[in-house]
């Protein structure tokens, strides 16, 4: 009996994957257009922005924090990179780097407020969410920026592999997931991210600078929001001052659905990819069977509450 109990967490970590398969099976039974390589390719394309945002979000949530600002910071990133290219004639790579620098700065701001002034991440990022949104509107004059250099669209291109197609952006997202997964598993810094989320006081007493770990995580998260901004620009061909609003909560939803605990210190980053795909499959599938987008929002809301409930229950089971 004890053996079965000790194996439960590993079964629980398969949960998101099983949920994804069930969702796919359900939509395949409802729509014959769902189960096709074109549609799967489309789902991945739709998921890549949320998927990369969710990487940054996962890092923050692993430290028992939360980042409510991720989507808005990303929107600011899209405006900075497109406007820098359009207004100052910067080449695509330089403009993109400026955009990522802007989102990383917001990450640094979040991190400094959390570590130096010791404010709760929830409140800090609620504030920076609004600040980022206002900056985006002011800087863009609430105008969408479309006159961008061709180089910025490149990641939106699609690679043909026989029947299947895969976007370069999707390949980048998958590569980032594998890299961050390895970093979290195999490096001391990665393990310290888990330790800080698990028991910050014990971690501090072992001589690890918990402030440095937290600050690093928020800055790194900002970098990922910048990469997500780059993908968003490549996908839509524009910088959208009103972007990032659905992606903001979708990223948190993806992390939670992927089995990362909101209480910190537990979770596998690859779960967030599965979580992002669950969100993507629901949005895609519900559209295919002609359900209005309001119900898609309703369903994602229910999914989040289910996922958090499972998280809460499994924690109680262990203690």
């Amino acid at each position: 009996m004890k053996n079965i109990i000790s194996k439960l967490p590993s079964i629980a970590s398969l949960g998101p994957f099983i949920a994804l398969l069930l969702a796919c099976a359900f939509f395949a039974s409802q729509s014959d257009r769902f189960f096709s390589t074109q549609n799967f390719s489309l789902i991945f394309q739709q998921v890549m922005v949320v998927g990369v945002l969710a990487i940054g979000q996962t890092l923050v949530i692993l430290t028992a924090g939360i980042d409510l600002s991720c989507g808005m910071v990303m929107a600011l990133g899209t405006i900075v990179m497109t406007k820098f290219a359009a207004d100052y004639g910067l080449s695509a790579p330089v403009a993109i780097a400026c955009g990522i620098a802007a989102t990383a700065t917001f990450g640094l701001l979040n991190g400094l407020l959390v570590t130096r002034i010791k404010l709760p991440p929830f409140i800090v990022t609620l504030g920076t969410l609004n600040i980022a949104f206002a900056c985006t509107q002011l800087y863009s004059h609430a105008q969408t920026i479309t006159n961008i250099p061709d180089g910025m669209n490149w990641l939106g291109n699609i690679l043909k592999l026989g029947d299947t197609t895969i976007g370069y952006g999707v390949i980048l997202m998958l590569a980032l997931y594998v890299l961050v997964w390895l970093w979290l598993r195999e490096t001391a810094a990665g393990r310290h991210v888990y330790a800080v989320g698990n028991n910050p006081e014990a971690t501090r007493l072992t001589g690890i600078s918990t402030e440095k770990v937290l600050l690093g995580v928020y800055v790194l998260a900002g970098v990922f929001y910048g990469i997500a901004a780059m993908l968003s620009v490549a996908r839509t061909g524009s910088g959208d001052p009103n972007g990032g609003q659905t992606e903001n909560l979708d990223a948190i939803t993806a992390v939670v659905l992927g089995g990362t605990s909101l209480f910190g210190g537990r979770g596998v980053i690859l779960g967030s990819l599965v979580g992002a795909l669950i969100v993507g499959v629901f949005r895609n599938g519900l559209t295919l069977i002609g359900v209005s987008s309001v119900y898609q929002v309703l369903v994602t809301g229910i999914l989040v509450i289910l996922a958090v409930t499972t998280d809460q229950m499994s924690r109680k089971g262990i203690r």
Partner: protein
Amino acid sequence: MNPPDASSQIVMRAKGLVKRYGQVTALDGADFEVRAGEILAVIGDNGAGKSSLIKCLSGATIPDEGEIHLDGQITRFKSPIDARRAGIETVYQDLAVAPAMSIAENLFLGREIRRRGFWGSVFDMIDKKKMLEESIARMNDLKVGIRSMTQAVETLSGGQRQCVAVARAAAFAQHVVIMDEPTAALGVKEGNMVLELIRRVRDKGLPVVLISHNMPHVFEVADRIHIARLGKRVAVVNPKKISMSDTVAVMTGALSVDQLPAELLAH
């Protein structure tokens, strides 16, 4: 292991420690010494200055006055990290472990073994295999009977978790292990398991400073007992000679140290 005698080497010593918190004087010229290979219990009523003393020794607070000597050298700890670097490990009452992480990871938390060569130096990658082997070796060394070092600490009982914390301290301490109420949260059987482990740590030659409220536990393992009262050290007694009730009487002030026969005092 022979009980330590007066000739045993003093590993850590404090002289005239004073610590004030506003109007309250928590330490009022307290002395302290712990010798090689002994378990020194520190007891005292609430407010006796016991925890302030331990905080000074472990670097958690800085004394206003007084000196701390480690191996004959004056030391000033600015933080617990400083004390740890100087070879003093502290085990805290509230189980300072990361519950979701494995035993091996907890043992090496903050002191991970890096891989050799390129992957370790450039990419900061850790050598999980080596850490696992070392964990097994160290736990075997202390005869801690836990089957798998890869299991999460939260799957262990309270006593086993405390054993992990004690084993970690013992594995890395160069000079002294300080244990703050290590058995307070544990049942009888689990408490005994931890006491047994504390003895084994002592038998490996490391001095142990044991802070405890539990008199039977103190009398079971201590070689000497440091009694704190009103911010000072009032006596160091020999648990082999003195009775538990006399010890408590000295601790509470019901019995003056002058009234104690000299043979009850430890050298």
